[in-house]
């Protein structure tokens, strides 16, 4: 019975065949850009000083591959630490305790307000500043003491230097996420007798993920390239340092810069693919509107996919705000 009604939808008895509006500007701009692109490619290929043969040779060099590995370790290691710290900072920022709130504010203010390069240099110099570290009561007894240089090696200084800095940025992202969840959710959970920590873990964070995850993916891509600054510590095994070292040794800085660029591009591309799927999963779709009505079979969810994702359902419930500015960190 439904077939004929659909046919009338598909077959339009009086279709419009109109000529498009002429847009010569489009053609001109496209041609100009294509010519410029061709010139750039030509400049890259024909200039012998790029030494593409050396690029190909060193691209798979053991030292370079090891540099890639260290860069990945630094990227993901520091992101994991930063995420844990950021959740703590964001929760502190929303705390009733003014000391907690101020501490979080101060942390974010300081670590966002100073250059990452300066911070990394500082962490590298920590063993000069404090040759011995001890655990104890301020101005009181010390429980145990160790030599700074033995514990905080260049790697740990680099890892934590990156993580502490990134945590400040992520804290704002997490806070935006937590703020985006409808207060009614917290109230309903409270009314059921749930404690604050349970509410955060079971009710608020799962919904805040929609806002938190996409920009965090972005931050990860950004972190990949920030790791190139760890020579400030100095940590000397990452991709940028490794390729620079070979470049200086062989008096061929340009091909080795190209190698570093190619590796960063490759990893970024892989991360971007991951980011794409994350964003699709956590739904940036600002078009969907919350509805009180039922999504029966053939409803809003029936058309595109048979089974709506959990994120679609969270979005459709309208308990998180659809505010794009929440995701922007200043």
């Amino acid at each position, binding site marked *: 019975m439904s077939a004929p009604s659909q046919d009338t939808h598909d077959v339009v008895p009086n279709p419009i065949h109109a000529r498009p509006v002429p847009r010569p500007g489009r053609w001109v701009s496209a041609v100009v850009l294509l010519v410029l692109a061709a010139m750039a490619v030509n400049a890259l290929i024909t200039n012998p000083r790029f030494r593409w043969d050396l690029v190909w040779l060193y691209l798979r060099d053991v030292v370079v591959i090891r540099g890639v590995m260290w860069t990945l370790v630094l990227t993901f290691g520091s992101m994991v630490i930063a995420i844990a710290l950021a959740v703590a900072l964001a929760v502190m920022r929303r705390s009733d305790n003014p000391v907690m709130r101020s501490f979080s504010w101060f942390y974010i203010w300081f670590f966002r307000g100073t250059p990452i390069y300066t911070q990394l240099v500082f962490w590298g110099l920590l063993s000069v500043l404090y040759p011995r570290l001890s655990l104890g009561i301020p101005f009181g007894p010390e429980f145990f003491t160790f030599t700074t240089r033995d514990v905080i090696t260049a790697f740990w200084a680099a890892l934590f230097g990156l993580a502490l800095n990134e945590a400040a940025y992520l804290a704002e992202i997490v806070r935006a996420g937590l703020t985006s969840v409808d207060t009614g959710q917290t109230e*309903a959970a409270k009314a*059921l*007798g*749930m404690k604050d920590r349970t509410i955060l873990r079971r009710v608020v964070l*799962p919904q805040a993920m929609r806002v938190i995850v996409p920009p965090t993916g972005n931050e990860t891509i950004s972190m990949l390239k920030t790791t190139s600054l760890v020579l400030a510590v100095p940590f000397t095994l990452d991709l940028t340092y490794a390729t620079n070292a070979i470049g200086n040794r062989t008096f061929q800085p340009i091909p080795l810069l190209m190698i570093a660029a190619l590796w960063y591009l490759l990893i970024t591309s892989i991360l971007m693919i991951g980011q794409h799927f994350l964003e699709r999963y956590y739904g940036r779709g600002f078009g969907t509107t919350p*509805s009180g009505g039922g999504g029966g079979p053939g409803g809003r969810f029936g058309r595109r996919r048979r089974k709506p994702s959990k994120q679609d*359902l969270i979005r459709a419930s309208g308990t998180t705000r659809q505010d794009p500015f929440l995701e922007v960190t200043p």
Partner: protein
Amino acid sequence: MSDASAASSAGDASAATATRGEAMVEVREVHKVFGQGEGATHVLRGVDLTVGRGSVTVVLGPSGSGKSTLLRCINELEDITGGSIRVDGELMGYRLDDKGVLHRLHPKVVAQQRSRIGMVFQRFHLFPHMTALENVMEAPVQVRGMSKAVARRRALELLDRVGLSDRVNRYPAQLSGGQQQRVAIARALAMDPELMLFDEPTSALDPELVGEVLAVMKDLARSGMTMIVVTHEIGFAREVADHVVFIDEGVIVEEGTPAEVIDAPQEVRTRDFLSHVL
């Protein structure tokens, strides 16, 4: 067991009246002020209300009269500025020591007090990332530490009771408003509350969905649940309420049986309000 046998030996009718007489909620001289200084609004101005165990109290009043605030104060979602609220004889939110000094209760204890009071919201507030079943199971598992298997069995019973046994695995966004509100009622019942608060439970619903939610509430009232219902459904109040309270501008203007307050209101403000709603 001994309670039940004592009640039955005393005879059903007299037992019911005996428990009815006992106060479940005692609101005494409650004031609530939002904000401070110039911008402060005095929402509740000395509310006294006694709700008997097993009774249904319907709170009527124009918007902004403080009726929702009163419910939220009983559940400690809002701090009261003055007065006292007792539920089942227990002071809510505070502890009075031997010397008559008031101490704020630890949030953990407040959460425990809340867990014995069910609340149903105007806009449902179901957890959108959980299915209907998971919504109902959540509090017993997380708050009471009930095993998932037991919580699941009870949640299925409750969802069956609100007529949703065929929707247990749907997410809130896949349910109609009426269905969502019925899940919300089941979710509140899962904590075995001794008191249920309804904050305009049908106001956000399409007219054709109101009936199904009211039916569940009537069923609940018949089972002997103590209920305080803020609503504009006069029909429901007339049929189900034991006690009707009319609030305006933060004070109780008139209260009594539905016949007294709805059908023969004494106060001008009550008559005025009812003429707009009926």
